[in-house]
Each structure stands twice: as C-alpha cells, then as structure tokens.
C-alpha cells in the first residue's frame, strides 16, 4: 500500500507506522470540523484578492480607454474606413496614434506574420471595439474590403512601392511609412501612381506635421529669421548597441511563406533594415527623417554629397548595411551656400538625436525628442535683440546666466580675448504632448476629408529619398557626388 508524503505525493512502500514525518506534529488524526475551518481559513483572502484585482483592472481599462480612445467625434464627421498593412513595430506605433484620432474605423489588418504580429494588432483593435478582418495577402484584402477609404502601410521598405501602387490603383488613399522605397525607381512609381489615380499619398516623415517643427520653420526661421543666414547644419542619430531581434521557434513562420514574401529566414525578416535589397541601413532608417528636415528648413535640395561609412562593428553577414555613416552635404540655398553634416552611428547612444541649425545670428537645436533637446535657441551677442519675438511668444525669455561661484578652491576662470561671450539661451515654446506620429496621421485624415493639405506628399518625400539614397551610393563610390536639379523631379507619367 502506498503512503503519502507531506506534499500529498504518493510514496511507494512506506512502512506502516514508519517515520512519515507526521508524528512530529500534534496533528489531528482525522478530519474534523476544526480542520475544515482552519484549512479553509485563508481562502477568503483569495476572494479579497479577486475583488482588488478586478477593481484594479477596471481602473486600468478605464484610464487606458480614456487615453487611447478617440475623442468623441462630432456628429457630422465623416467616418474613414482604414486598414493597416504591416503590423510590426512601426505598424503598432501608428495604430496607437490612430486610436487617439476621432472618426476612424479600422476594417482590416494585413500582415504575413500571422503567428504573432497580425494576432497582436488584431487583439489590440478588438479591445478597442474595432471589428477587423485579418489577412495575410494584401491583394485579398483589397479584393474583399471594398469599403476601405485609406490604407496605412508600414511594411519593410522594399515592399512599399508595390503595396502603395496597388492600393492607390484600388482607389484607396495611402499613408506609407518612410523611406518611400529602397530604390528611386520604386519611389518614382509611387509618385506616378499618386498622380495618375488622384488619390492621396502621404509619406511618414512625421516631423513635417509636428507643431514644434512647424513653429520653428514658419515662425522662427521664415517670419522672424532669428538665425540670420544659416551657414552650417549638423545633426545626428546616435543609437546604442542593440542585439538583433530574435524570435522564439514556436512563432517562426514556415520557410515557404518567408520565401514567398522575399525573406531568406526569420532573422532576415526580423532584421530586414540591415539587409541590402530590403532596407537601406541606419542612414535610410534614421537619417532620412533628419535629412528631410535639413532640406525643408533650408528651402533647398543638396547640390553635392560626400560620405564615408562602413560596417565597423556588427557581423557583416547579418548586417549588410553600414552601421556608421558620416555625410557632408552642400546646399545652394536662396540665402547662400550651406554645409550640412550628418552622422548616424549605432554603437553608442549618448547625445541621442537632434538637428542643429547655425546661422550668423543664432542657433537652433531641435529634436523630435523633447526630453533630450527641449528646442534650445541661442542668440549670438551681435544679433539684434529678440525682445519683440519674446513678447509675441515665438521664443521664451532668455535663461539667466548664473554667476560662477566665487570659490577659493576653484581655479579662477581666465578670460581669453579670443573667446566669444556666451550667447543667451532661449527655448522653443511649443510642445507636442501627443505621440510623435499623431499630428502627421491627423493631417493625412484631415486631407482625406478635404480640410487640409498633405504636409509630406510624395513629390516632397521623393526629393528626400533622392538626397538620402545617394549617401549609400557616395560611400560605395568613395567620391563626392553631385545632384542635378532635375534629379529631384519625377517627370511625366511612367507606366
């Protein structure tokens, strides 16, 4: 006869009356009322826990819904039926922003990674009461979802052109993530399809709709001209070393499906930005956003580019593109020549990302990340006073310099006649409290309703694509390359 140990497990061949350990405690020999009561005495704590957890869940749900649910739409607001094509990390970022925009109805989600991405976004949307259909093949989605007004595309770069062209030709407006395409030929097809179909095509250079950038461009640079003549620009995106994205085996896609959609394996699928033919590397992924701002703020396209880059750090087998790139552009702006430096490196994240415009009267450091760069402006001592612009609210009042502490221990600062007097520091008084992509998506949907104009239509983003994709070419060529003005234009209709 088998015995039992103290954990209730069967113990074979325990001798009767042997040392089971039970005897050491004055435990009752049979189940009495007292045992039942004491045995169950902590069960009510579980009920209390259940109650507390339920309260907590309700609280979290209410706050999440309040934060994410679109504000109540006015009754006459035309509802826009949208689909998400590409439900990876960027697709989710866009989805979260869109859930905060009034008057949108999600109808469909398409992603080839049905095991993970697709399921995750569909679940999120269903939580917010959007009854969406899920697709693996976007053509099937376009065939079936006849009522769609707009498609949001966040697939890998090498799919952008085909996805965009097919969606536009199916009569949908398109918001497509940057980079427009990994090839200029693809980008041209997109511009051409937008022109031919008359449908809207917004590209996801979201800083173009950011109120801080709009304020800096419209008020500080154009109207007040606080920087004077911009002569140099520098900017960077420094990113810390990051491990490759992996995937647990149970979520892996079948090889046939990966191949069907242009990927060798799951590693390539997850880390497509690093592979030639799929993405463009960090300079295209990150630099594209900021080089777009260079051209926008300078009001010109570059005339020349020289660049140096290489794969200095990562395994070149899995990181075909350059992990480090340094670029110098020449611009011939209406105000005069400009040199613009940009670097992206993926081996050290300190000092993050920003764009720094330096004119003969002032400096503007701006970044999408307000946490790190609050939008500082420096007025050069020889520039006219900014009082008028402070009164108008274009810039904040200058920060008062604190007198250096007169300490006996600190070495006395020696004023050198060659040093400039430190400039006053001001701040850009406009902040964005919404997610970064929300204003850009809002601009797209406002334009769909006919109430706005796209801030980044395809012909503008084509110019950026020309400037950015040329960097990789310049690195390979190891020489200074020039742009012709006509390089930035898409002429006529191609087929």
């Amino acid at each position, binding site marked *: 006869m088998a015995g039992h140990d103290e954990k209730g497990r069967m113990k074979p061949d325990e001798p009767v009356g042997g040392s089971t350990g039970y005897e050491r405690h004055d435990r009752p020999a049979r*189940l009495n009322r007292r045992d039942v009561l004491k045995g169950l005495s*902590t069960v009510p704590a579980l009920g209390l826990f259940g109650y507390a957890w339920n309260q907590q869940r309700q609280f979290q749900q209410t706050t999440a819904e309040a934060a994410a649910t679109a504000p109540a739409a006015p009754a006459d607001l035309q509802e826009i039926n949208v689909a998400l094509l590409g439900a990876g990390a960027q697709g989710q970022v866009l989805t979260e922003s869109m859930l905060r925009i009034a008057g949108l109805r999600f109808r469909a989600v398409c992603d080839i990674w049905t095991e993970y991405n697709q399921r995750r976004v569909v679940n999120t949307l269903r939580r917010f009461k959007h009854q969406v259909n899920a697709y693996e093949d976007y053509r099937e989605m376009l065939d079936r979802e006849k009522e769609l007004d707009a498609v949001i595309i966040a697939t890998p770069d090498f799919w952008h052109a085909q996805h965009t062209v097919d969606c536009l030709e199916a009569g949908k407006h398109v918001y497509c993530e940057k980079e427009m395409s990994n090839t200029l030929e693809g980008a041209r097809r997109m511009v051409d399809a937008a022109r031919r179909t008359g449908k809207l095509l917004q590209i996801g250079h979201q800083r173009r709709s950011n109120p801080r950038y709009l304020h800096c461009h419209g008020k500080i640079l154009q109207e007040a001209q606080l920087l004077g003549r911009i002569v140099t620009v520098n900017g960077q995106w420094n990113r810390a070393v990051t491990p490759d994205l992996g995937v647990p085996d149970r979520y892996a896609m079948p090889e046939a499906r990966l191949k069907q959609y242009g990927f060798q394996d799951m590693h390539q699928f997850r880390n497509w930005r690093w592979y030639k033919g799929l993405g463009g590397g960090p300079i295209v992924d990150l630099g594209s956003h900021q080089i777009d701002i260079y051209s926008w703020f300078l009001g010109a396209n570059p005339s020349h580019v020289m660049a140096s880059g290489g794969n200095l750090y990562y395994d070149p087998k899995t990181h075909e593109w350059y992990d480090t790139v340094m670029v110098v552009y020449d611009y011939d702006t209406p105000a005069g020549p400009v040199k613009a430096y940009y670097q992206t490196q993926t081996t050290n994240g300190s000092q993050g990302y920003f764009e720094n415009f330096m004119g003969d009267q002032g400096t503007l450091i701006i970044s999408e990340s307000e946490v790190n760069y609050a939008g500082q402006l420096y007025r050069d001592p020889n520039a006219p006073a900014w009082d008028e612009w402070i009164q108008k609210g274009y810039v904040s009042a200058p920060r008062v310099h604190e007198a250096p502490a007169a300490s006996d221990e600190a070495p006395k600062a020696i004023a050198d006649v060659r040093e400039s007097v430190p400039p006053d520091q001001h701040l850009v008084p406009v902040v964005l409290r919404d997610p970064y992509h929300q204003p850009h998506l809002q601009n797209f949907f406002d334009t769909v309703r006919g109430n706005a104009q796209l801030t980044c239509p395809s012909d503008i983003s084509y110019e950026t694509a020309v400037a950015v994709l040329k960097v990789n070419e310049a690195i390979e060529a190891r020489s200074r390359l020039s742009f012709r003005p006509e390089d930035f234009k898409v002429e006529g209709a191609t087929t």
Partner: protein
Amino acid sequence: MNGGRWPMIAITLLRVVVGWHFLYEGIAKLSSGSWSSGGYLRQARGPFAGLFEWLASDANLLANADLITMWGLTIVGLLLMLGLFTRLASLAGMGFLVLFYLANPPFVGYFYSIPTEGSYLVVNKNLVELCALLVIFFTRSGLYAGLDRIVHALLTRRPRLAPAPSVS
C-alpha cells in the same frame, strides 16, 4: 503547532501577504500581454550579470524564461495564499527570489540608473521576502491554517498510515 496560537496566526498572515504579492506579480505580467523579462535581464548587474544577459540573448530561452516567470509567480502565489503544498511553493518562491536578488544585487559598489524607492545595502526587499518564505517553509504554516491541513487530515485518517496509539 509549537509556539502557541498567535505566532502561527502571524505566520499565516505573512504567508497570505507574500502569496498575494507573488500572485499579483504573476497575474499582472500574464494580463499585460506583452510583458517580457528581456529588459530586466539585460540590465542585470553584479557577479552573475553574464548569466542573465545570456538568458536574454536567445529568443527561445527568453520566451521560456518569460513563461516560467509569469506562470511560476502566479501558481506560487496561489498556493501560498491557499496554504496548499506550502513547502513546495515556498521553495519555488525562494528560487525565484534568489534569481531576482542575484540579477540586481545591492552589493557595495554597484550603482543603478533605475531609481528605486528605497535605500539598500546588501539587504533589499527581495531578500526580506526570501527570508519570509524561509520562515513559512520551516514552520509549515499550511498545516496550521491552509488546505494542507485538510489534505493531511484526509490522508492521515487512514488507519494504516497513522494508527492512533490507543488502537493498538
């Protein structure tokens, strides 16, 4: 149990609140949908940091570590609250806490950029909770107030297993 009634009630209370904590840590991770220990593991410090970073570096290992953590915490919490298989649950709970403690040990000379809510030197709340489980383990609190008592009473009722001395 030895030591009288009030100490055992106090230890039962201790077991229930530690169980509550485990249960909520587990349930909160399970219900968040996207929780992963990856970030925590990659931030590991101290002499065992390499082990935790290695765990985070492989997607399959990490996925398993996540599952074990989420479900482990939940189950340990539930068992501790109910006083069922208390010793097994205490052991498992201590196992988790040893790992949590070693991933970010508050040893002399380690500085954390993540702000904490208190000040710790060698002893932190993980270690305190671990010691609480040690008390629960050795006092077998489930046998005083918990389902273990019922389980054991049912089992010991069988005359062959625990014959009453008067019967023989």
